[in-house]
């Protein structure tokens, strides 16, 4: 059993680490200031410049296959990269990727949707959640009715990440009510200029999702993604594409936060001694470090299973659940160690506190992950002995 990185993995990881330090972290104070004023953290110009620098070096499309101009890296490498990026709260990711389900598009759709999305010329969003259907995604009501050569979509989607900026949406709608999720849901590629509207939703985080309104939006038949009636499978595939990446990012954030807490505890003196000398503080640091270590290996193990072509769903759910729960406990302790300063908007701790909270909700809540994990065990699809048997 070898837990070390290969030379190549370390070099790519270190490249990202250097990039984050030299290009991203210096922007942090300004990002905080802008966000305090209610402005976007990064300007378009800064975003473009960062992406340009990364692209020039070929750090583009981490998971995108090489035949589409990406790096085509394995999941383990993608997780390591995501963790490095997670060390900064600056909202940046390398560009050059597209939603996995767009790779199922036909040739003509690939030209119109997949390639421009990879190139960053078009922005996609994934729309399944509705006001009446979140965890219970099978319960969606948005409908698509055939009318001549077109489909007519009616309904409302909510909490759609990127929905304010997107110029097309992958929309999941009921095409056969009787069949429901089992053959009655279809995925459509719907351009904004076909008539849907978006409405921003204010959240406790720094980036807001949108609700999307479909009022008799006409979509031509050629915009069906995959097959009519096979939409729900695509949705599940989309959600499964990189569940390990969410806790990977949180892992990086936790590392940085605990480093900040250690630094703070060494310099903050109360009753004549640094608080680092107090057992109460030490235990918080120790527990956090153990949990970070556990999270690291849950994430990398889930990614490794993806690379091995194994059924990684159990491992991914575990990593996502543990990441969500522990990242929130850790950021809370780090805030506590910082005392009043931790509660202010001078430091990024409270920002992470708000941002990490989302991890317990989207792409399957904690409760839904637990439900999946338990069901897999009860039905015998997975064992508490893990992959070693």
């Amino acid at each position, binding site marked *: 059993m070898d837990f070390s990185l290969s030379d190549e993995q370390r070099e790519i990881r*270190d490249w990202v680490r250097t990039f984050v330090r030299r290009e991203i972290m210096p922007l942090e104070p300004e990002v905080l200031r802008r966000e305090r004023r209610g402005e976007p953290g990064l300007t378009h110009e800064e975003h473009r410049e960062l992406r340009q620098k990364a692209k020039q070096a070929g750090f583009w499309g981490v998971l995108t296959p090489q035949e589409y101009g990406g790096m085509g890296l394995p999941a383990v490498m993608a997780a390591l990269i995501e963790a490095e990026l997670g060390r900064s709260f600056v909202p940046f990711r390398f560009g050059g990727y597209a939603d996995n389900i767009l790779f199922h598009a036909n040739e003509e759709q690939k030209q119109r949707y997949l390639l421009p999305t990879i190139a960053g010329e078009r922005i996609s969003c994934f729309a399944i959640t509705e006001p009446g259907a979140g965890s219970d995604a099978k319960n969606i009501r948005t409908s698509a009715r055939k009318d001549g050569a077109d489909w007519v979509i009616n309904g409302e989607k909510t909490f759609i990440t990127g929905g304010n900026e997107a110029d097309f949406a992958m929309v999941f709608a009921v095409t056969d009510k009787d069949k429901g999720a089992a053959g009655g849901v279809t995925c459509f590629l719907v351009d904004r200029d076909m008539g849907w509207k978006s409405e921003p939703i204010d959240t406790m985080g720094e980036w807001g999702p949108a609700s999307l309104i479909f009022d008799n939006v006409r979509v031509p038949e050629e915009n069906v993604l995959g097959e009519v009636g096979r939409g729900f499978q695509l949705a599940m595939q989309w959600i499964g594409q990189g569940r390990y990446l969410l806790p990977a990012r949180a892992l990086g954030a936790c590392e940085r936060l605990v480093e900040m807490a250690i630094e703070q505890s060494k310099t903050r003196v109360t009753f004549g001694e640094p608080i680092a000398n107090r057992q109460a503080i030490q235990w918080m640091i120790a527990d956090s470090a153990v949990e970070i270590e556990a999270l690291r290996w849950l994430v990398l193990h889930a990614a490794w299973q993806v690379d091995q072509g194994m059924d990684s769903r159990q491992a991914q759910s575990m990593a996502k659940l543990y990441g969500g729960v522990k990242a929130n406990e850790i950021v809370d302790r780090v805030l506590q160690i910082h005392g009043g300063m931790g509660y202010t908007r001078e430091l990024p701790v409270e920002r992470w506190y708000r941002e990490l909270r989302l991890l317990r909700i989207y792409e399957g809540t904690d409760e839904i992950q637990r439900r999946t994990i338990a069901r897999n065990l009860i039905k015998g699809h997975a064992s508490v002995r893990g992959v070693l048997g």
Partner: protein
Amino acid sequence: MNIVVLVKQVPDTWSERKLTDADHTLDREAADAVLDEINERAVEEALRIKEAQGGEVTVVSMGPDRATDAIRKALSMGADKAVHVSDEALHGSDAVQTARVLAKAIGTVEGYDLILAGNEATDGRAGAVPAMIAELLGLPQLTQARKVSFDGSTVTVERETEEGLTTVQASLPAVVSVTEKINEPRYPSFKGIMAAKKKPVNTVTVADLGIDAGEVGLAGALTTVLEAAPKPPRTAGERVEDDGTGGTKIAEYLVGQKLI
């Protein structure tokens, strides 16, 4: 133009740097090791010269096994090949011994026109090795370069020191050491990282270079560190009350520190 670039792996300036208690040498376990930033600039300069004039870039490094990371970084940036002097006997070598070993290692590179180095490493900060190498090889030395240009077999350097700016010239081959101002180093490209694996690295011992192991290392060093103490914690600093003369006082202070 064929260029040799001297590179060194140093403890990351971002991590805590320490000396070992036993022999006051660098505690290499205590900090992450990286290619010295000043060397990244030297490699960058070599690559720019190569891109303009053609030729080959060879990196030469002396350091323990794990210095291969720094060498690979230079190769990922675009250098063509490397010579790595790695030998237990080198532990604790001082600047003079290092210069001797590097001069021999440079000798294994055929037909070089230029030797580039950083003006001083961020760890030892002796800033003497490039000049010593020039002396040992009988070559002209142009140190503290913030700009380098060529005209036939003449190299011209803008040399910047605390005393000011001087323009110096020499005929090639020559040793040039560069300062922070020379350029902004590129990031290695993803392709470069993948290609670096296939580039030749010639690993040699001191015996391979015809040096007796007794001449190098802590025991044979000409200089000895008798004592080492950590930097004292930052003090509160000097407080200037602004009674209208604040600006002048700050300016006087900066002049006193030779900062302006």
